[in-house]
C-alpha cells in the first residue's frame, strides 16, 4: 500500500534539501472528491428537482409573448 505523508507525521530531521520559504511550500489540495455513490445521489436529486420544473412546460403568457413579438414587423 502506498503510504501518504500527512501533516500528522513526525517532522523529519533536517535533510539536505534546501529550506523552502513558507510561501513556496506546496500546500495539500483542499478539494475533496466525492465517491461515485454520493455524486450519483446528488445528481439524482438535482435532476428530479430540475425536471419537475421542466415538465411544467411553457407558461401561457411566455408562449403568447414569443408569438406576439414574432409576428411584429
Amino acid at each position, binding site marked *: 500500500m502506498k503510504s501518504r505523508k500527512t501533516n500528522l507525521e513526525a517532522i523529519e530531521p533536517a535533510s539536505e534539501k534546501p529550506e523552502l520559504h513558507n510561501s513556496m511550500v506546496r500546500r495539500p489540495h483542499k478539494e475533496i472528491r*466525492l*465517491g461515485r455513490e454520493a455524486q450519483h445521489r446528488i445528481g439524482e436529486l438535482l435532476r428530479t428537482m430540475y425536471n419537475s420544473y421542466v415538465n411544467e412546460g411553457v407558461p401561457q403568457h411566455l408562449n403568447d409573448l414569443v408569438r406576439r*413579438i414574432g409576428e411584429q414587423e
Partner: protein
Amino acid sequence: MKLDPAIRDQVLATVPSLRAFAISLCGNIDRADDLVQETLLRALAHIDSFQPGTNMPAWLFTILRNLFRSEYRKRRREVEDADGRYADTLKSHPEQTGRVEFEEFRAALAKLPADQREALILVGASGFSYDDAAAICGCAVGTIKSRVNRARTRLADLLSIDSVDDFGPDRATRAVLAGGGRG
C-alpha cells in the same frame, strides 16, 4: 421583420429548461418567470446577433445568467425563502422523491454560492458540457469543474450524504446498513 418560425420554435422549445434554470437560480417562481420574460424580450430584440445553426439554448442561458447576475444576485434574502413561500408556489412536487427530501435538497441548493449553484445546474441538470457551461459563465473550463466539485461536496455535507466510496464502510457493511434502514 417577422421572426423566422424555425427560430421562434427553437426559442419556445428552450423555455422549459430556461425556466427551470431560472427557478433553480432564483428560488422563487414569480421572480424566475420575470427573469425568463426579460431574457426573452432581450433575446428577441437582438435576434439578429444569433447565428442560425449555433447553440440556441446556450445563447439564451447566457443572456439569462447575465441578467440574473446583474440584477438579481443581491436579493439573497429572496433566494433563502425563509418563510417557505417558494415551496408553496410550486405547482407540483416530484413524486418519486419524498417531499421532505425534495425540500431539504432545494434548501441546501439555495445555500450554495451562486457561482457554484449555476455551474452545478448547468452541468448536472441542464445537460451542458463543461465547455458550454464555461462559455455561458464566462470562465475557464477548469473553474467550472472546480465549482461543480465544490457544489457537490457542499451539498453532500448539507444533506449528510456520506462519500461511501472514499471513506465509508465496505460494500458488505453498507448492504447490512441499508437493509437495516428499511425496517
